[in-house]
């Protein structure tokens, strides 16, 4: 690990004052499960590390205005041990329960989960987020792309967004509070993510001098029927291969409005708008769920080794929908 200066602020304001104007200057440290790994491999080499785990205001789950507020450094274990705040959000709870390692649960934070960097093995081995060879060509289309994107992969990015929490949060219409030198801003979770267009751009829209402080679920989200279905290759110690999170505004058994968000299949949490249209106004049963699963795959563009993900999407969407109304 490259040497760095260590900051241990006790307020968000102090923390922000320790951050720099670019990512090389400073990095925010939460549980460290991702950041320290990247630093050990010299993928991330910040000159200063700012620990935010001593800021007690950032940790904890509470009800606010009928909705739910999750402090950014709330650990998975905090929620696993006391899942009461998640009672109306089974889709989020399923995503948290899916992170199956005792050690990861006690160290990993919800903010760190959203901001963890992609697992793309080219990125993790030093070829950069866009996995470029020495001639500036992407290694992914002709390389080992079995875990890469099937949507949003027209280039230059092929990695998949690794966060298990992002798809349910996007589906439920959650927002984020972010603080920076100029004050606070709120943005929908979906807008935290972007497909980078060039090597200088990260996959998150948060800026180097900003800190994610809270995740907020609105009171209205409590009325949505919601569920997440994850397909995993291994039960433990691994990210899912594909996931679907659904949030449905129902009128009896009829769907008034649906949000269907896919995980692990695109560089961002992927809205399956075709499936959403397929569901609107329908009485949800197995046949409709199957058609929605089919509609979710429209526009998929599998690479040479990841065609199997198309079928996983089909199944995950169908099963998440059926779970939501079960």
């Amino acid at each position: 690990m490259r040497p760095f200066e260590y900051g241990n602020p006790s307020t968000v304001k102090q923390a922000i004052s320790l951050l720099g104007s670019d990512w090389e200057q400073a990095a925010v440290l939460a549980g460290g499960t991702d950041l320290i790994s990247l630093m050990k491999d010299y993928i991330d080499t910040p000159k200063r590390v700012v620990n935010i785990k001593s800021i007690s205001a950032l940790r904890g789950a509470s009800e606010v205005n009928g909705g739910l507020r999750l402090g950014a450094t709330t650990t998975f274990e905090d929620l696993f041990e006391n899942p009461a705040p998640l009672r109306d959000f089974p889709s989020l709870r399923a995503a948290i329960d899916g992170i199956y390692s005792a050690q990861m649960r006690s160290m990993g934070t919800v903010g760190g989960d959203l901001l963890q960097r992609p697992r793309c093995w080219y990125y993790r081995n030093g070829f950069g987020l866009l996995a470029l060879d020495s001639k500036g060509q992407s290694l992914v289309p002709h390389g080992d792309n079995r875990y890469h994107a099937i949507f949003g992969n027209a280039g230059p990015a092929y990695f998949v967004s690794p966060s298990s929490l992002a798809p349910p949060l996007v589906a439920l219409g959650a927002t984020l509070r972010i603080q920076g030198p100029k004050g606070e801003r709120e943005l929908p979770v979906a807008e935290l993510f972007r497909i980078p267009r060039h090597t200088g751009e990260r996959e998150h829209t948060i800026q180097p001098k900003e800190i994610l402080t809270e995740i907020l679920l609105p009171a209205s989200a409590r009325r949505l029927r919601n569920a997440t279905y994850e397909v995993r290759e291994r039960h433990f110690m691994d990210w899912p291969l594909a996931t679907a999170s659904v949030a449905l505004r129902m009128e009896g058994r009829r769907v008034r409005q649906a949000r269907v968000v896919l995980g692990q299949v695109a560089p961002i949490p992927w809205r399956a708008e075709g499936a959403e249209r397929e569901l609107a106004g329908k009485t949800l049963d197995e046949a409709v769920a199957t058609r929605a699963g089919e509609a979710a795959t429209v526009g998929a563009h599998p690479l040479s080794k990841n065609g199997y993900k198309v079928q996983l999407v089909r199944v995950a969407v169908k099963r998440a929908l059926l779970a939501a109304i079960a």
Partner: protein
Amino acid sequence: MTKELIRLKVNGETHELAIAPNKLLLDVLREDLGLTGSKRGCDDSSCGCCTVLIDGMPMLSCVALATSYQDAEITTVEGLARDGELDPVQEAFMSWGGAQCGFCTPGFLMTTHALLEKNPDPTLDQVREALASNICRCTGYTQIYESVLAAAQKIREKRKNEIAISK
């Protein structure tokens, strides 16, 4: 590189150490404190060999900066035995063949200890789940799970006796 003075509480004892901020907890334990029970396996948060308890919670010392845990109670495998008496988890691993080459064992002992503190009557599935991210390449896990269930039983009996004596 500049070292900083940190205070670390390990197995009930407070140490003052001059270390660089980029030093991992695992390396401080092994190199500065001579506590070599915690092992460096994968060095990539995937094997559980470096597991220690931080405020009672199992954590990976290979992705933890020592300096971040100055206010915490850290327990390593060396701190499990009390007053010369093995922890029930250690005893059970010994009697039930829960260890073979032994490299992964400290990590298993720590994760198991944390599990049984919280839940002294786990089902086999709960044991499997709790130990999911501790990897063993020798035993095939069966004896490990048997050891954990035996330790759980021992702990329950011990607690029952303690209650009986105190009555």
